[in-house]
Every structure is written in C-alpha cells, then in structure tokens.
C-alpha cells in the first residue's frame, strides 16, 4: 500500500521546520554521518598518537578505541529505542479491538508481520516505513541507510494497536509532513540499527530493507551509509 503526500494539521505546530523531501533527507543523512565521524575521530587519533609516542600506553589506546566504536553504537541504540513497546498496556479487550481496526487498515502480510514483530511496514515515496507504537523507521531507497523518528499519538490511554493506527493514518495522509513533524533520533547504517533492535523486531526491518532495495532497483536513487 502506498502513502500519499498531503497536509497534516500537526504541521502547523512545527511551522519553523522546512518540509522534508528526498534531498533534505539525503543532506541530513550526510550531516549525521559527518557529525558521528567528528565525534569518533578524536578518539581514534588520540589512540594512534598514544601508541606512536609511548607504546606502553597501548591499554589506554584500547580504551579510546572502545570509545570511538561506542559512539555510533550509542546513537544506533537510541534510534532503535523508538520502536520499544510502551510499558503501559490497556485492558485485553481494548487491545483486541484496536488490533481489529489495525488489521482492517493493512494487508495480510502486514497482519502476520505485526503478529510476530509488533510492527507494521508501509511503502512511501521517501522509502519504506516501519511503524511502532511510539516511533518509526524510514529505510531509504537502496536499503543501506535508515532514519529513526520519535513520533507518537497524544494521550497515554491508547492501546498499542491504536497507537500504530494513528501513525499509519497520519503517514498515509501526508508522508512529508509526517517526517517533518517527527523528531529525528538517528540516521545511519541499516546493519548497525538492526543489531541494536530487539530480536523479534528485526524481521520487520528486513522486510522494509528488502523492499527498499527493490525500489532502488526500480529507479530511485540509492543512498549510501558508511557510519
């Protein structure tokens, strides 16, 4: 199923933000990669310098290397965190009713995917979306870069299925506005994100990544991700 570009009323609440489009996403991805390199590079340089000047300080260099490795991992963990299910759970009848409606909104493959992962995949013009209760991932064409967004329905009393339905409906109404309203939590390599996701959620990212790779083959420009 495909999402449409339209106008979300929530866009007015973040009127100062420029509407997200393909080029803007590409630039933000590059900027994110550059920022991550700038955070990690000093640790790498210091580690190399220490070993070069005083080989006896090799253990300190190892600690610095661990820091350099850990920084992008921490970013990826934050990105994966947007898909973590909320602790609050509604009464079972409410959860069932919410799932019935969500099931009406998606196709059979997505129903099965949600049953096993708790996530829903939706095709968009900016890439493939993976929707959770309080956040979304956007796998860019080519499948190598993923962007992670914090976004959720207002109100704490909604069942989990309803939370996803809210995001799905908003996304279908206006994909670019949806990406503008949502807060970017991470942009980077899909493999790094996958490693930080819960095991049961990874198949949803795999489905989105495969679809993004196929869409890239159909003509959309693939976006690289080295970080």
């Amino acid at each position, binding site marked *: 199923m495909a999402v449409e570009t339209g106008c979300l009323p929530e866009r007015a*609440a973040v009127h100062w933000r420029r509407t997200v489009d393909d080029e803007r996403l590409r630039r933000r991805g590059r900027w994110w990669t550059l920022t991550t390199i700038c955070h990690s590079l000093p640790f790498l340089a210091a580690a190399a310098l220490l070993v070069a000047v005083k080989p006896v300080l090799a253990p300190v260099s190892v600690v610095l290397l661990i820091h350099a490795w850990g920084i992008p991992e921490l970013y990826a963990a934050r990105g994966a965190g947007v898909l973590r299910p909320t602790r609050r759970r509604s009464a079972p009848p409410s959860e069932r009713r919410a799932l019935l409606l969500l099931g009406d909104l998606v196709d059979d493959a997505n129903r099965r995917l949600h049953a096993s992962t708790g996530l829903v995949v939706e095709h968009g013009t900016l890439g493939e979306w993976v929707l959770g209760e309080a956040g979304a991932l956007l796998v860019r064409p080519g499948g190598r870069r993923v962007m992670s967004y914090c976004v*959720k*329905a*207002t109100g704490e009393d909604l069942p989990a299925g309803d939370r996803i339905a809210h995001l799905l409906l908003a996304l*279908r109404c206006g994909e670019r506005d949806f990406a503008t*309203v949502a807060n970017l939590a991470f942009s980077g390599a899909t493999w790094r994100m996958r490693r930080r996701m819960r095991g049961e959620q990874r198949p949803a990212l795999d489905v989105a990544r495969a679809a993004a790779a196929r869409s890239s083959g159909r003509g959309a420009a693939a976006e690289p991700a080295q970080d």
Partner: protein
Amino acid sequence: MPRLIRLDQTGHTTLAEWSAADTEAFEAAVLAFRRELDRGYFGIASRADGTAEQVRSLPSDAPTVILRRPIAGG
C-alpha cells in the same frame, strides 16, 4: 455501509453508520463528526486501496471515516 469510527482507549468506537438513502442517519453522523472535531480529533477518510485523506467535513461516499488524535514528535 459507511462508518464513522473514533480511535480511543477502548480500541475503537463506532459513532455512526449510514447509507446513501438514509439522510437522517447521515445527518446524525455529521453532527457526531463535528462534535469530535471540536474535541480536537482529526477526520481521516480511509479507502480500501490503502490510501487516506484528511477531511474537514464528513464525506458521504467514503467507506470508513476514522477520527484520530493529533500526533507529535517524541
């Protein structure tokens, strides 16, 4: 039969159902729709092909109109 549904803490609530011939039921649905808009809900006309559209008045021909709450960046 077209339905007006609200996403809420119960999972969802069907607020109204109408048919093309039943103008009375449709008018009752319009009133319910406006009441929910005033409470801060947004109306979405959802179609079977997986597309959706934000609506500010109740379309009589949409199979399902869903009322949702606003979303926000976390």
